């Protein structure tokens, strides 16, 4: 059964699975298990969590018995991983504030550099073109409730709406007055 397991890789994987099972058991610890007749919210999760911990441990233990095959996870394209995930997070964080048109432009442009073959002359038109297509398709045709250009980019937003920023602006102007 263990024939297809590999030593460092599946030890890690098994421990990850057991850990996730344990986390579910721990988080669901206060859920009412009820009885077999009337199962509460915690009954099924507890069964699944226990099996998960057991499965993960068995995978890790069986893999440990294999001779070590060395580190076989291969290369990780770190730049790509960071750029792609960063793009997704920035989209989620900024789309409402900045608006669809600018956020797609920036996200596509940034994500393009995840590839080794990215060039300025292809990334620029790609991001601009995609932003235009997305804006037309999703906002104009499909009516997605997102601003084209968000409030963060409108004039006057930062001076009036956000107290932290206005405080900053006031103190900055006060500082410049004193300095003068």
């Amino acid at each position, binding site marked *: 059964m263990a024939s297809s397991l590999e030593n460092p890789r599946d030890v890690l994987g098994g421990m990850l699975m057991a850990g996730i099972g344990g986390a579910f058991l721990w988080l669901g610890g206060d859920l*009412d298990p009820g009885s077999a007749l009337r*199962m509460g919210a915690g009954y099924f999760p507890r069964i699944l969590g226990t099996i*998960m911990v057991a499965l993960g441990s068995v995978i890790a233990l069986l893999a440990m018995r294999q001779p070590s095959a060395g580190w076989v996870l291969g290369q990780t394209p770190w730049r790509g991983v960071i750029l792609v995930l960063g793009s997704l997070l920035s989209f989620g964080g900024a789309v409402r504030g900045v608006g669809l048109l600018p956020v797609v432009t920036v996200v596509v442009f940034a994500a393009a550099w995840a590839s080794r073959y990215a060039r300025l002359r292809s990334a620029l038109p790609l991001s601009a073109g995609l932003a235009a297509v*997305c804006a037309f398709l999703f906002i104009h045709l499909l009516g997605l409730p997102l601003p084209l250009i968000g409030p963060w980019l409108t004039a006057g937003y930062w001076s009036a709406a956000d107290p932290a920023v206005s405080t900053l602006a006031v103190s900055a102007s006060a500082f410049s007055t004193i300095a003068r």
Partner: protein
Amino acid sequence: MELFSNLGLGFATALSPFNLLYCFMGVFLGTAIGVLPGLGPVATIAMLLPLTFGLDPVSSLIMLAGIYYGAQYGGSTTAVLINLPGESSSVVTAIDGYEMAKRGRAGAALASAALGSFFAGTVATVLIAVAAPPLAMLALQFGPAEYFSLMVLGLVASVALASGSLLKAFAMIFLGLLLGLIGTDVESGAQRFTMDLPELADGLNFVAVSMGLFGIGEILRNLGHEHSRSLQVKSVSGLMLTRDDLKRIVGPVLRGTGLGSLLGILPGGGAMLSSFAAYTLEKRISPNGAQFGKGAIEGVAAPESANNAGAQTSFIPMLTLGIPSNPVMALMIGAMIIQGITPGPNVVTKEPTLFWGMIASMWVGNLMLVLLNLPLVGLWVRMLKIPYHLLFPAIIAFCCIGAFSAGNSTFDVFVMALFGAFGYCLIKLDFEPAPLLLGFVLGPMLEENLRRAMLLSRGSPSVFVTHPLSLALLTCAVALLIVVVLPGIRAKREEAFSE
């Protein structure tokens, strides 16, 4: 004949101009994503799912189905022309298809793939029309115990038929089941694993999870081994098959269709498994077996017929039992639920236009696909020249907007990012994410049926073995498990997957 009046209703639905348009959009998109390596039907359907909210249920399901079987056609083009599987189900097609292309027979390879697929699609359509209604009638008599056992069988089968380690596939299923429990417990109203996040009260968004696992995870993997593609064939000519070719592919197409139809119905089956099995079978029994791997036309016709047949018959358990047999079907179920249709045996009787319209649209779609893929092959060849580094930023943008529009919430974009990163870890650790998605969809159903069965039996678990149907289903599950674990058969299974 009830079948004919039903099919009449189906064709009347499928041939309405509006549905024809959506069917065409589906198969066109399906071919496109099939041609493009690195973009599969799961990610595409997940991306498009939110866009179908406003559509009529029939039109949206017709389109989504078209994407899946359309991708089976498109995948062969890439496999033959650049020796890369455009779709996981055309991995084996590349072996002989590319060899044929190198000898200037790309046209014949593409023609045999498309014609084989069309034949298989026709047979599978008829099979669904004939087999689905009686199966749904049978399923109507299912109680909670039977449903529970059926789902267990489905999950076991999806593990048994997957490649790689059994234990790891099981771990993925249980992980999916656990993730499916996140949210409000329907019975007690308790918040489970929501970590006080109100966004999690309805559970993790299915679209965001599947796009993360299959869309983003795949992009990250592809970035790991990027290489510029070389296009072997600039233009494809000679689409006509010779009389000798035709004679050689009749048997493989028939056997591929039969095998594919059968494996497609099985839970956990579908297009990919069918193509592998058909190729292996053909290699064993074909009189031209020695030519396999060196450009045998049988090695293209058989797996391509099989994957299309398998793709279509995998709709049978989804339509009649409401149980998905692969991630694409899980998404189709998601699409039905979004449209307010309860998946299950009642779909046949309660939604006849949907059921028969979808079946008829499959045949119409297959006809469109032959026309799209043979005379218009030049278009797809040109599309193959789009380099991946221009493609994936677009996928990222569409995934972001798709995740957002699934629930008009930026939270789902973060969920997608999280599962993208997690999916990439799983790929690195060689865990297959497909069973996870099945578990995720089946988790809540499994728990609900377990609870109801136990309540009806007054807390005695013997209900699962005293009901004959439930016992039969569980016996199948156990038998399947034993068969897969037995050393001799295990070795064969690994051999089949390594080929």
